[in-house]
């Protein structure tokens, strides 16, 4: 088959860069450094429960904030003139063109105890804030970095809602609030679901943001895994096990959400 031949490079790509790493991680997770089978890596994980809890909690908070900011932004944007929409979208995307690390460092220098924010506050004779090295700073960093991933899918779904559906709702007696609640919001759910996924997944596994803005006290899963591979606590087997468990939890979350949004076609990009 011609089509099959054409898809060969993609199948190869997927096998090499998607399937193989997962297989490797799974193998690592169930073996010791000498290659024997073990469940030890998983039984040791109990002590890291707080890290799991913190990671999911912070990612959840960041996702909710992104949704609360991103939905109204997308909705308002979709009602503006095409010209305005173009410019605004550009501005939303612009920070993404800059290095992620650099942007996070920028927040560091803003939030530091002697950083821009506090200097401004003291210049205005206001009490200074101690944000750096707290979970709040991590959440802030996540929201800043991942907001575009919430805005873009919601925006693209809302702009695609057929104008005549809104008119039909008005025609049938729906005042503006009702048009939103009964038509626009339900029809934008697929965008909301993919937005949530696209924010939550990177947020739960981030390590740069938490390292730079969260200090040692708010270690997240990403940091923990990184430590097992590159850090002082070198143990790739434990790291793989943690990564595997995290992946399974995320998958379960996504499945539950998919179920929740059933009936909405092309719902979530996993």
């Amino acid at each position, binding site marked *: 088959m011609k089509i099959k031949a054409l898809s060969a490079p993609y199948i190869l790509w997927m096998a090499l860069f998607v399937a193989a790493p997962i297989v490797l991680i799974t193998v690592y997770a169930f073996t010791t450094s000498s290659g024997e089978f073990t469940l030890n890596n998983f039984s040791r994980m109990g002590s890291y429960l707080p890290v799991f809890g913190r990671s999911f909690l912070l990612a959840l908070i960041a996702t909710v904030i992104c949704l609360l900011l991103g939905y109204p932004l997308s909705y308002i944007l979709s009602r503006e003139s095409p010209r305005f929409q173009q410019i605004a979208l550009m501005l939303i995307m612009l920070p993404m063109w800059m290095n992620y690390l650099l942007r996070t460092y920028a927040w560091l220098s803003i939030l530091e105890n002697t950083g821009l924010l506090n200097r401004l506050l003291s210049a205005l004779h206001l009490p200074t804030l101690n944000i750096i090295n707290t979970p709040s700073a991590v959440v802030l960093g996540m929201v800043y970095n991942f907001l575009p991933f919430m805005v873009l899918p919601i925006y693209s779904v809302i702009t695609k809602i057929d104008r*005549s559906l809104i*008119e*039909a709702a*008005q025609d049938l007696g729906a005042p503006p609030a009702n048009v939103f609640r009964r038509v626009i919001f339900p029809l934008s759910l697929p965008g909301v679901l993919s937005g949530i996924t696209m924010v939550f997944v990177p947020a739960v596994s981030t390590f740069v943001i938490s390292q730079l803005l969260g200090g040692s006290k708010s270690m997240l899963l990403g940091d923990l895994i990184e430590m097992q591979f590159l850090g002082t606590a070198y143990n790739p087997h434990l790291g793989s096990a943690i990564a595997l468990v995290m992946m399974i939890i995320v998958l379960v979350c996504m499945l539950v959400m998919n179920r929740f949004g059933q009936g909405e076609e092309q719902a979530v990009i996993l």
Partner: protein
Amino acid sequence: MSKELIRLRNCSMAFDDEIVLNDINLYFNDQEFLTLLGPSGCGKTTTLRIIGGFLSPTSGDVIFDGVRINHIPPHKRKVNTIFQKYALFPHLNVYDNIAFGLRLAKTEIKDTNGRIRKAGLSKKEIDSRVMEMLEVVSLRGFENRSVTALSGGQQQRVAIARALVNRPKVLLLDEPLGALDMRLRKDMQNELKRIQQAMGITFIYVTHDQEEALAMSDTVVVMNEGRIQQIGTPEDIYNEPKNAFVADFIGESNIVDGIMHEDGIVEIFGRKFKCLDSGFAPMEPVDVVIRPEDVDIVSIKEGMLAGTVTNITFKGVHYDIIIDFKGFKWLIQTTDFCPVGSVIGIKIDPDGFHVMKKSQYSGMYGDYSSYSAEYDEIGDAEFDPESENAATEVDGYEN
């Protein structure tokens, strides 16, 4: 029947300096089936949207039941619309689509203290009305189906039910049958007419399909270039078109220059003919319409005029024949076969002529030269039903 319900008074509409409606004056009677007919861009949909409340006219008044409603938003108007592509809510099933308006509706009820307060409809009431409507549009048993899983005809019925369940005084229909195939279209035409008569609702129907307009309407309003060209019953519009545009748009017409000598005498091609028209100035230049079915083919001796057949097309019931009269090509419909190249005579009864005053459209329509050229190209090929479309296309009214 003849109570006036809606009136558009001196309504004009412009989008960015482009005038779409030019001083429209029109009234709609209660329980009437009125069709706005015209080519695309003639302003018919704009007129409908003004009545629906989606547009406010740049100038002029919209009067509903004696009240000016220019700035009343759509959700407060007692008017419902059936949209061109139905605009069914894809996230709701058939039942919820139809119940949409009822769930928003408020009725005035007297509470136990005799005070009047507003309340939503009860679940029971909504249910019985939705079920009743499903019956009307023959979709009983479909209530839990997803609307995206329905066929075009079924979606159309849901759209009708969703609008009518609210018991509007007026139903606006924006080319509702445009997406359906021929057979289904005919069925739905009958169905719509039946529903309209049974429920006693005013229908304002927008279409560019003249057959549809003639078949369904009590009153037809022919529009072009943002102006009303003619208002009348289907028979009036067909038999007594006001100008060349209307004559050409409604059915097939041969339109030739003529001179009205006196009442009952019209001259075309340099010869005088008896006609039934009157009321023109002596020797007034006029447009004369001759419908293709009003021309009889006779022998050259008996004929009033003689011409050469340049084309013949079999149409089922009749033949379409193109005849060349000194360079001017006519369309004639006849059951007689006349081979291409033969010379034939024609005869027209006095009631076959319709004389119109000259208008801005004079000379623009009613010549079948291009029509015939179109056929010459495919003349050698076997008869192709597609050529029917080709014939309508040369008129210049693509959708």
